[in-house]
């Protein structure tokens, strides 16, 4: 079940590269095997965050104060493109990220965020660039506010930007709903669909023609 999200005022870190893919967010070798939930936070952005000898890369923004405390990312175009690996979202969540603001996201990554109580917000690129510029000018001291109830982002200097969000997904985040339980309440509908589909497209339903 996803964690609920309502409002957040926090340190934000701009990661403005274009096309940050999910391989860069979490290396496949960190998610393979049983190193699943709970141990991935330290591996988020591993190739950017650590030098080849394993020490922190001082150039990487999330290794610097106050960005180490960031709970919000402000991101460049096409953030989270590539592999479907949900571990990318888990690793960000485990390092404390609750909201990601950008001009566009990989479709599967975007869906995975909602499954884990992370709010992804899409705004025009010009607004994203101005948010990043404000944060950089304050050297990270200026905090961003994300309000899912009001559907607004407030910049450190107080400018407010309204964002669009799918009402279903908004409701899901506000309440932290469990989709599997909700869908299983419709199990009669699912079974009715399958029964009529077995007549319409019998070649889909193996049990139908093995008998």
């Amino acid at each position, binding site marked *: 079940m996803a964690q609920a999200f309502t409002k957040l005022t926090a340190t934000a870190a701009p990661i*403005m*590269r*274009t*096309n940050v*893919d999910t*391989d*860069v967010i979490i*290396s*496949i*070798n960190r*998610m*393979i*095997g*049983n190193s*699943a939930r709970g141990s991935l936070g330290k591996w988020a952005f591993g*190739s950017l965050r650590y030098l*080849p000898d394993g020490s922190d890369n001082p150039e990487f923004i999330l290794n610097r104060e106050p960005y180490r405390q960031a709970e919000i990312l402000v991101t*460049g*175009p*096409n953030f989270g*493109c*590539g*592999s*479907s*690996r*949900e*571990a990318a*979202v888990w690793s960000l969540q485990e390092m404390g990220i609750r909201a990601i603001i950008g001009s*566009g*996201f*990989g*479709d*599967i990554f975007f*869906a*995975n965020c909602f*499954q*884990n109580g992370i709010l992804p917000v899409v705004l025009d690129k010009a607004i994203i660039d101005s948010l990043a510029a404000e944060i950089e000018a304050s050297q990270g001291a200026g905090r961003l506010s994300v309000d899912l109830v009001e559907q607004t982002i407030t910049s450190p200097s107080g400018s407010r930007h309204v964002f669009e969000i*799918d*009402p*279903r997904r908004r409701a899901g985040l506000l309440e932290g709903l469990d*989709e*599997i339980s909700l*869908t*299983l309440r*419709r*199990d009669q*509908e*699912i079974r009715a*669909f*399958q029964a009529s*589909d077995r007549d*319409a*497209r*019998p*070649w*889909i*339903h*193996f*049990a139908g*023609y093995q008998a």
Partner: protein
Amino acid sequence: MDTHGRTLLAKIWDQHVVARLSDDTDLLHVDRHLLHDLGGSRGLIDLKSRNIPVHNPELTFATPDHAISTASGRAGTIKTGWELLAALRTETSASGIQLFDIDQPGQGIVHVIGPELGLSLPGCLIVCGDSHTCTHGGLGALAFGIGSSELTHVLATQTIIQRRPKTMRVTFDGKLPFGVTAKDLILALIGHVGAAGGTGYAVEYAGSAIRDMPIEGRLTICNLSVELGAKMGLIAPDDKTFDYIRGRPYAPKGEMWDRAVAAWRTLRSDSDAVFDREVSIDVGAIIPQITWGTSPEHVLGVDGRIPDPADITDPARRGAIEIALDYMGLTPGAPIAGTPVDWVFIGSCTNSRLSDLRAAAEVARGRKVAPGVRAWVVPGSETVKRDAVAEGLDKVFIDAGFEWREPGCSMCLAANGETVPPGQRSVSTSNRNFIGRQGPRARTHLASPAMAVAAAVSGAIADVRTMER
């Protein structure tokens, strides 16, 4: 009422709506759920821990591909790879899910075996916890990658909650020039619209070049849809599609086959259907493609020059190119052809089918891999492997100095101990040239199978048109 004709996407979508959840979001029936070793057992274990049974195990199929070694006897499989395979065996068996295990016909890369076994059919809704699930769209299926939570939802309910995407049609018209393949068309498209150009869209590929293209080329085209940002790629099924599917193990037979084909013939966009975005590409102007950077959109014709950041005015674009050039260790402004390579990888869900191996063998026949280059051929499935051996393709590759391996994902994602060493340069038929994708600090250039062989035998990125017979 909609006054326009309907798109292929709309026709397939509407057939799968179990319940309308909002104006643009539906609960859709999943016809085929494909599991692999990396995430499959975890979803089954999650479900077991909640005491929820698998809703339709007979519509769920599994195979190991990501984490197993492709060395002979699977000798190189890492400990976690064996553990994932063991868990997949235990959990699929407990749930009554068909597993295509190693060394059995049917095992292979999940997006190779679906079409090959007749599991992937026109009009089918197919999901898998892997972004390249869009591959199956080459047969006219609505197929897309999902995350782990969604995977568990599908196991529990045989449905997926999905927002209806916008539609984009890409029309490839014209005759493929000499030396140009499906891979070159789709790479050229990604270069044209960008790695986010298809975000939020389902892309239908149409036009004379698609109609003329064999099915396996269509699978390659749809496979790379996700690299232009689209979760789904689709091609209307036609007689070629039906001929490809007929007689495959899980395809309908007899009277059922005739009924299925009659239904499949309706699966095409109406002539007056309206798309949210249209792109037209003249394939006659495309030459063999090769990527230079760290996104599939960083692509060039093989006669092109490596970009020079000094020519770029937009600071964000210039910065992105500088980072990519630095990672790739390339000289701005130099010709891409002639760049020395250390590795060549032929395989992956993009280009590991029999036709890919035939095209590669055609260039490799009678030539030798250049000294200092290591070159692998990894067939996409046990069936591809057996068919290739029956044709003697393995011998062509081995004689030329390639390593002939067992089926699996291998170096495409390097999750299995099979990596390009740090700093080394690889020409690969796979789908992603991301930073670290083929191993930490590995440098990847994406290309077609024929172009990969041209690089292997030249020891450098080379124009295959000088070698094709």
